């Protein structure tokens, strides 16, 4: 396959490598409470304990815009399925706050588009920023890509041309610039919304002042995928501003070659340091460095907020584990014999009003450890893990794929993972 991938950026800045050492610092006295004298609980033991302490609290209505507890969406297209869901994180449920994530998708017979946004947890109106941004960008992409394809009948052929040719570059540039413009459009829509809210008493009361644009801070991840050559190849153009992950997975490939990252997370030295959609980040110079285009045979495109991405870090190779988790839990098809084999799925009580137990399977239960070698071995068995799937255990977490995605997002447990979670999957495998 002719594989092409590029970024317009210079080499991304790599965080300073720091060797982690267990050695205690040299102090002038003796340490009386050494870590190794204490029994360290496993993450699972800690989560089994905290599972019973998490509380479910309804969203507190302060008169400003409220977001639903969750949202799910499924679209069947001529070239594959788009499955998306977002859920309110455990911390938001515990504290009675809104889900700040939002996503929107769009498609025609020529393309699929998805926009995923994560409103800043520290900003009171970020959920509005994420909603407005996702909706306006998806709408912009749908309108403008439709127009582009209708006006320029040759664009698909040009996207199939030699990657060094002028034809390819101009077609690639046309689509990439629309994705970049969708981010600018999202910021403009935020400003328009701000004008509506700034004299609204409900917002003045909640904030104690007039709302400003930074109250709506959100990350922005947009992906456009164009099927080429009767669906054998895909052209993908993405813009990622802030954390989260856009990943193109080729499930026919082995090893790390199967994972292609379509964005940079802009993370800082500490967890949760990121950037947002702003005049600075959508400037021509800045957005060029946040744009990636690719042509190849990747058959699964996943766009997610950090609530999911952080649980699958580093993305190479952990996005392979995410794919296997989606298959084990019935969101994507899973092959292999379905006679159940241990280890069985693990149950935790849902953080919901009902607190029912939800059993889910975890790919990491099937790997020896989290080393790249173990992930490689697991990935090589990806089509033969049916015996560990929920289906093998006769467990159903929903009638439809989007419902299963939502229930899975809402209930998988990782220690220190309690943010909102959003994942959109563009699945071309089903059409192959």
């Amino acid at each position, binding site marked *: 396959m002719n594989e092409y991938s590029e970024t317009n950026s210079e080499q991304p800045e790599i965080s300073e490598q*720091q060797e982690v050492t267990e050695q205690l610092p040299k102090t002038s006295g003796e340490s009386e409470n050494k870590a190794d004298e204490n029994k360290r609980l496993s993450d699972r033991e800690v989560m089994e304990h905290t599972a019973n*302490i998490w509380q479910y609290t309804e969203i507190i209505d302060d008169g400003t815009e409220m977001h639903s507890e969750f949202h799910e969406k499924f679209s069947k297209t001529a070239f594959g399925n788009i499955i998306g869901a977002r859920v309110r994180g455990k911390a938001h449920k515990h504290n009675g706050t809104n889900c700040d994530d939002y996503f929107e998708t769009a498609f025609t017979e020529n393309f699929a588009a998805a926009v995923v946004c994560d409103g800043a947890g520290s900003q009171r109106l970020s959920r509005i920023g994420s909603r407005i941004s996702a909706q306006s960008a998806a709408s912009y992409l749908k309108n403008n890509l439709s127009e582009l394809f209708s006006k320029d009948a040759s664009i698909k052929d040009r996207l199939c041309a030699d990657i060094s040719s002028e034809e390819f570059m101009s077609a690639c540039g046309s689509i990439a610039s629309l994705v970049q413009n969708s981010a600018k459009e999202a910021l403009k829509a935020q400003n328009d919304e701000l004008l509506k809210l700034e004299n609204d008493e409900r917002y003045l009361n909640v904030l104690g002042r007039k709302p400003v644009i930074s109250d709506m801070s959100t990350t922005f991840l947009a992906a456009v995928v164009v099927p080429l050559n009767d669906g054998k190849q895909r052209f993908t153009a993405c813009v990622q501003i802030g954390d989260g992950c856009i990943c193109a997975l080729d499930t026919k490939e082995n090893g790390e070659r199967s994972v292609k990252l379509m964005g940079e997370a802009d993370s800082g030295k500490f967890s949760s340091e990121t950037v947002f959609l702003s005049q600075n980040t959508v400037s021509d110079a800045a957005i060029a460095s946040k744009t990636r285009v690719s042509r190849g045979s990747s058959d699964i495109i996943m766009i997610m907020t950090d609530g999911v991405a952080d649980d699958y870090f580093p993305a190479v190779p952990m996005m392979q584990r995410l794919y296997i988790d989606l298959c084990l839990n019935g969101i994507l098809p899973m092959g292999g014999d379905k006679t159940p084999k241990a280890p069985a799925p693990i149950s935790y009580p849902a953080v919901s009003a009902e607190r029912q137990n939800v059993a889910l399977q975890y790919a990491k239960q099937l790997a020896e450890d989290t080393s790249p070698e173990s992930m490689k071995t697991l990935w090589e068995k990806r089509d033969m893990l049916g015996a560990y799937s929920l289906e093998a255990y006769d467990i159903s977490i929903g009638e439809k794929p989007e419902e299963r995605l939502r229930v899975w997002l809402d209930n998988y447990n990782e220690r220190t993972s309690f943010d909102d979670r959003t994942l959109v999957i563009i699945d071309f495998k089903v059409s192959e």
Partner: protein
Amino acid sequence: MSDYLRRLPVYLLLDCSGSMTGEPIEAVKQGLKTLLSELKSDPQALETAYLSIITFDSTARQICPLTELFSFKEPQISAGGATALGGALKVLAECIKNEVRLSTNEQKGDWKPLVFIMTDGAPTDDIDEGINALKQVSAGNIIACAAGANANTEPLKKITNNVLMMNNLTTGDMAQFFAWVSSSVKLSSKSVEAKPGEAVVLPPPPQGFVIVP
């Protein structure tokens, strides 16, 4: 996946100099007990917060390395000697350097550390060296509390902009201080998904405490 566990490191720097003898040091011990019990009832703190204690008298030492709450044992502490706050800052810098993980391409870093300093006097050593050592590491958010009438806020203001003054050194006041530390840790662990570049958000200080401008 403990390899990638993101922790909220919390460092307590406690003054154990001679002037803390008697009721104050007993109040500190009781405060620590309450702090642990409070934090253990909060799921976010339980999953994320790791606690370390550094004490200082004539010298400074880390008596509890950064340890998760489930495994944390209350340390034996006693009062006596001078006030080596500068030494404590150097120990803190060394601990942060060795214990706090920064983000790399392979691992998610810890959350920004939360540091609480409690002292009832004035440092008897040079604190500038300690402040310089702290500048070499990303110390995170530092909150200093000057406890009692003899505490000097000036050196603390050189360390951080967040300085609180506790007027008395009674058991009740100390209990309030630790309750406030507990609320601050809970609030920080609640907002761990909060994004960067902002000043640390702390609960309002307890009654009788004054924020030093």
